[in-house]
């Protein structure tokens, strides 16, 4: 094992070395920093050219210059890491240290959402292969797969930000729109559940009625101006998450499973008002953590109290239900700051921004408030997150669908059915678990790709992350800055590959690492 790891690490170093050598020379030979002097008529032009040649060591051939750059990187081994200076004489490492957190903030939510929705929808389409839902989702994922992200981004800016902000001036949804939205909602839900024609129609009807009722309420109460989930919304979402968690872990026909899941959901609903005390105006991240840990311990507690055998299964139900159901409580708290946030001078009744990563005009008190500044960040994240989620979601749908279909055709699935296991057990235990195996590789690699992966999105939404650094590096012929971005993305990619291989050996016992 140790030999394998060290051999892989050595190989990683060689690959990163080779790739960076290639990239360095490609950049050095394809850029011409001296071109800025092409039409210059300044008197000291010759002096300036000489100075630049000296500063950038342009008289040294790039393949040799590469090694002086490499020396700074290798020096990282004894803690003397040096990526050189950018053209504006700032250490590259400082620029990157500022940019990386911004990019991570931008892409992390989108990646999680895309993974969760993509995998679950992909697996549902595989289970209901050749159903209406499958056809619609297949077409939809192909469409999303074919969309250029910058185009989606401009559309989102127009329809989700500018027109939505206009709509907020008089937030009234017309009756016709309510009917159409309700019917679409009904169709989506019916697509999930499937079933015979009569079932299908009744699900459409009830879901549409439900959505219609909610929209009418939203309309009557001017919900968009002071949004909140309230105790009813929180309870409802908690029950939904309980259903999903129970179905995945034990199945809804397990009595103890139902007791733990729904018990946790109801306990969280009861805790809704007491927990508000924890989330006062001067709260911080720690309070949010406290809310989560209280709810999770309640969930686990219920699991322990109910069960004597198989305790860990019921604890898991409690834990996951509590974890998911806490999100609505936190979101609800943020939402209730919306009305004050929206009418403040900095926002001026146009809450959804099209550009930037934070509102610069917020007052110091607003910035101090965890809830207001958090809401501000969340609103700035809406559009880029939506765009990124839509684009990467399609890939996960296709991949998890294909993966689950392949597994469901395996002999061991037939064996599982033949020995009389319930359909749920066959699909969740034998199907989904095995279908997740190849997904681990993709997931790990995607997380590594996050840092360099949002160059276009950052450009469209004017975020100052790795994308804008990279853009600047190319346009200014900034070799050190370019190599900084490059070495980070390259190293992360190689490292993620390595981790993925190790992880695969852990999750899939069939794959053993060669000694």
């Amino acid at each position, binding site marked *: 094992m140790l030999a394998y790891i060290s051999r892989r690490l050595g190989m990683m170093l060689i*690959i*990163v070395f080779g790739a960076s050598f*290639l990239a360095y020379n490609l950049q050095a030979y394809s850029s011409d920093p001296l071109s800025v002097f092409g039409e210059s008529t300044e008197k000291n032009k010759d002096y300036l050219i000489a100075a630049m040649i000296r500063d950038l060591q342009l008289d040294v051939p790039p393949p040799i210059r590469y090694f002086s750059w490499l020396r700074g990187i290798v020096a990282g081994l004894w803690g003397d890491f040096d990526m050189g200076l950018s053209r504006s004489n700032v250490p590259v490492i400082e620029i990157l240290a500022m940019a990386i957190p911004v990019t991570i903030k931008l892409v992390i939510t989108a990646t999680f959402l895309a993974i969760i929705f993509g995998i679950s929808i992909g697996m549902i389409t595989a289970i209901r292969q050749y159903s209406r839902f499958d056809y619609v989702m297949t077409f939809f994922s192909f469409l999303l797969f*074919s969309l*250029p992200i910058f185009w989606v981004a401009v559309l989102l800016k127009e329809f989700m930000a500018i027109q939505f902000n206009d709509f907020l001036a008089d937030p009234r949804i017309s009756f016709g729109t309510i009917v159409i939205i309700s019917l679409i909602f009904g169709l989506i839900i019916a697509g999930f559940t499937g079933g015979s024609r009569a079932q299908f129609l009744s699900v459409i009807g009830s879901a549409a009625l439900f959505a219609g009722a909610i929209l009418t309420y939203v309309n009557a109460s001017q919900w968009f101006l002071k949004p909140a989930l309230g105790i009813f919304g929180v309870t409802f979402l908690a029950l939904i998450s309980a259903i999903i968690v129970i179905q995945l872990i034990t199945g809804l026909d397990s009595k103890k499973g139902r007791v733990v899941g729904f018990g946790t959901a109801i306990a969280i609903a009861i805790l809704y008002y007491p927990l508000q005390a924890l989330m006062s105006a001067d709260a911080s991240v720690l309070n949010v953590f406290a809310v989560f840990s209280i709810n999770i311990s309640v969930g686990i507690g219920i699991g322990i109290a109910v069960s004597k055998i198989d305790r860990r299964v019921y604890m898991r139900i409690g834990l996951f239900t509590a974890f998911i159901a806490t999100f609505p409580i936190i979101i609800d708290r943020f939402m209730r700051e919306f009305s004050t946030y929206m009418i403040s001078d900095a926002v001026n009744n146009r809450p959804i921004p099209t550009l930037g990563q934070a509102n610069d005009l917020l007052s110091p008190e607003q910035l101090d408030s965890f809830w207001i500044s958090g809401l501000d960040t969340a609103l700035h994240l809406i559009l880029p997150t939506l765009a990124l989620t839509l684009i990467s979601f399609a890939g996960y749908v296709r991949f998890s669908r294909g993966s689950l279909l392949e597994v469901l055709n395996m002999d061991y699935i037939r064996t599982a059915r033949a020995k009389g296991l319930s359909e749920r057990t066959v699909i969740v235990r034998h199907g989904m678990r095995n279908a997740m195996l190849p997904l681990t590789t993709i997931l790990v690699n995607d997380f590594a790709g996050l840092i*360099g992966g949002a160059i276009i999105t950052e450009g469209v939404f004017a975020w100052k992350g790795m994308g804008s650094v990279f853009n600047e590096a190319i346009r200014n012929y900034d070799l050190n800055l370019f190599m900084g971005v490059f070495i980070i*993305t390259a190293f992360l990619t190689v490292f993620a590959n390595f981790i993925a291989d190790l992880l695969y050996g852990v999750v899939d016992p069939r794959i053993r690492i060669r000694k």
Partner: protein
Amino acid sequence: MALSIQESESESSRIMSKQNNESVSLVEKDENEIANRETVGRSQRQIIIKRFVKHKAAMGSLFTLIFIVIFVFSATGLRLGPKNGGLSIPGWWKYSITDIDPEGAIAASCNGGVTGCPTLDLAPAFMDDDGIRFGDHPFGTDIIGTDYFALVMRGAQQSITVMLIVGLLGVTIGTTIGAIAGYFGGMVDAVLMRLTDMFLVTPTIIIGSLIGFRYGNFGVVPLAILLGFFAWMGLARFVRTEFLTLREREFVDAARVAGASDRRIIFKHILPNAIGVIIVAGTLLLSGAILAETALSYLGFGVRPPDVSLGLLISQYQDTFSISPWLFWWPGALIVSIALCVNFIGDGLRDAFDPRQRRHVSVKDRLKAAEHKGQRG
């Protein structure tokens, strides 16, 4: 693989003919009919083509894509060879991207003074007064009066050219490297795969921007060729894996025993069997290439003005979206349709070459089957 597919196909047709026969036997027909019937064998290629033709979305996409390509290239015309001289075929559209028609733009005003609205009107006469018409500027004009139809067609032509060149180069290089690595194995494999990894760790967009920023103004063909040199890695890996398994097969041993050279084994024996993987990965490469080109042009690292590409058009006109949205819709719609068609064709090809993801027996079907059995028994 070839054998097993044929077997399953013939088995299914046997079952079908059996079912037919059951109904036929009621009319008391010759019992030996099946035995007497001549079995029609199908070649591997015929099976694949048949499966692909059955895939409606893929066939529809194939025709749409061919139509788009012919439409776009015939509208702008073609020029092969140097700028002055060489082969030049004029397009059928009356404007070029350099023609400016300010009067026409003003004549096509709409929405209270916005100039250059599209004159295309697809609503037939019974829906509005003037019926279907194309007008002088079907896609409208931009602010200074350049015909937008000419711009979009030219942009689409450039984007498609990049897509095809990148795809062709990527497939050629990827197949060559993958085949050599997979067939010879050992040291050759190790060196080639580490080389592939070196290219692979570099995000395409990063290298693409670098190349595009420097060489984008040299024209679209050199840009595409340079991009193609950085687009082969994924395909090389697929081909290598395929070659690794295929070279262990008996027919390769047989060829070797018969004295075939390495070259002959690679080209005549293994490559035809790996063609499925190559074609499917190649189509994916194509849709990736057009999205990458438009993204690079959008960022300003691809095709430069005065030439146009679909991505460049979007980046130029995105700010006028609220005033003249058609300047934004048309190029986007073309990118999406081309990429969507290519993706669907790829899906159809994958199903045709590798039917592993074909229907598994769903719960519904099993219930139906059980019901059916109950009725009979």
